[in-house]
């Protein structure tokens, strides 16, 4: 399971003004952690005034709200959890969807469907025209019987969260449902 925690830290600066920093910590089920600081200042946490952990019951909208404060660099690092450098490079050339929406979607899918393995991102190009077709979000351990139900749930949540347009650019793939093992 992944979780997102948000920490806010305020400090009083010389001159009386207060600087507030927000840190979003995203933990994956493999216990690796990503830390994205919303400012360019590399700060360490002093007094933590608020902390909030997002459970696996959190909505996609919750993830979208937290992701909103992350920098481009943070988003790139987060996307590398789900795609390798080559895939990310191709994504950046085409930019079929907003990277912020995509990262939030991947985090939400990982939090809700973690039992099917970490979702992985791929880009589909037509072999004849070489034109980009759509993004695949692949759930490695998901089989044929679960596939339709998961698609309905994910696309329904996308529509409820304001990502209706994105539903036409993203395809959900249950890898074990699509492919058969070699016997």
């Amino acid at each position: 399971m992944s979780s997102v925690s948000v920490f806010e830290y305020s400090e009083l600066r010389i001159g009386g003004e207060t600087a507030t920093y927000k840190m979003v910590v995203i933990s994956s089920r493999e216990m690796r952690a990503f830390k994205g600081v919303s400012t360019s200042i590399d700060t360490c946490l002093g007094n933590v005034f608020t902390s909030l952990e997002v459970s696996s019951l959190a909505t996609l909208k919750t993830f979208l709200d937290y992701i909103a404060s992350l920098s481009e660099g943070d988003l790139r690092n987060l996307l590398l959890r789900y795609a390798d450098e080559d895939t990310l490079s191709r994504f950046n050339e085409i930019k079929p969807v907003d990277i912020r929406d995509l990262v939030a979607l991947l985090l939400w899918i990982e939090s809700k469907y973690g039992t099917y393995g970490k979702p992985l991102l791929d880009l589909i190009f037509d072999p004849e025209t070489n034109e980009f077709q759509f993004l695949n979000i692949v759930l490695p351990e998901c089989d044929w019987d679960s596939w339709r139900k998961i698609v309905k749930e994910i696309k329904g949540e996308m529509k409820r969260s304001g990502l209706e347009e994105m539903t036409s650019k993203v395809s959900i793939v249950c890898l074990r449902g699509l492919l058969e093992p070699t016997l």
Partner: protein
Amino acid sequence: MSSRSSRADALRPDYFINLVEKLVSSGKIRDEACIRRFLSALYFSLFNYWAAIKYDKGARRKGPKQDRFDYREFHEELLREELDVELNLLYTYRIATDHYVLNPTIIQIYNKEIVRLMTRDRLEIHIGMNALRKAVEAAKTILKQIST
């Protein structure tokens, strides 16, 4: 055969899909070449029909007669209708059957982690009767959606 005014009527694939279904259930499809051609044709029968519906409704795209539509637009409409299962099944197997010689095979995937998982678990595209049966069901679901 068909009137100029309705390309959709001429390209409606109900009969073709039913024909493939009957051949599958009768056990008369015996070789891989036939399975490959039917898998590919199921996809293209739906793509043609979808494009014909668009054309009849006044959509114009590429080509001298503006009657060449892109796969991407077709795929986007299916994904919007949550037909991810059906699209992936038909499109993946159509690519494998038309462009790859080995069976089972693995088509081009950019994310190396997915390739690693497939290799580890020996997950491959098997071009056979089971795939064709699933493709017929997927084609019927897509046809129902694009006919409405």
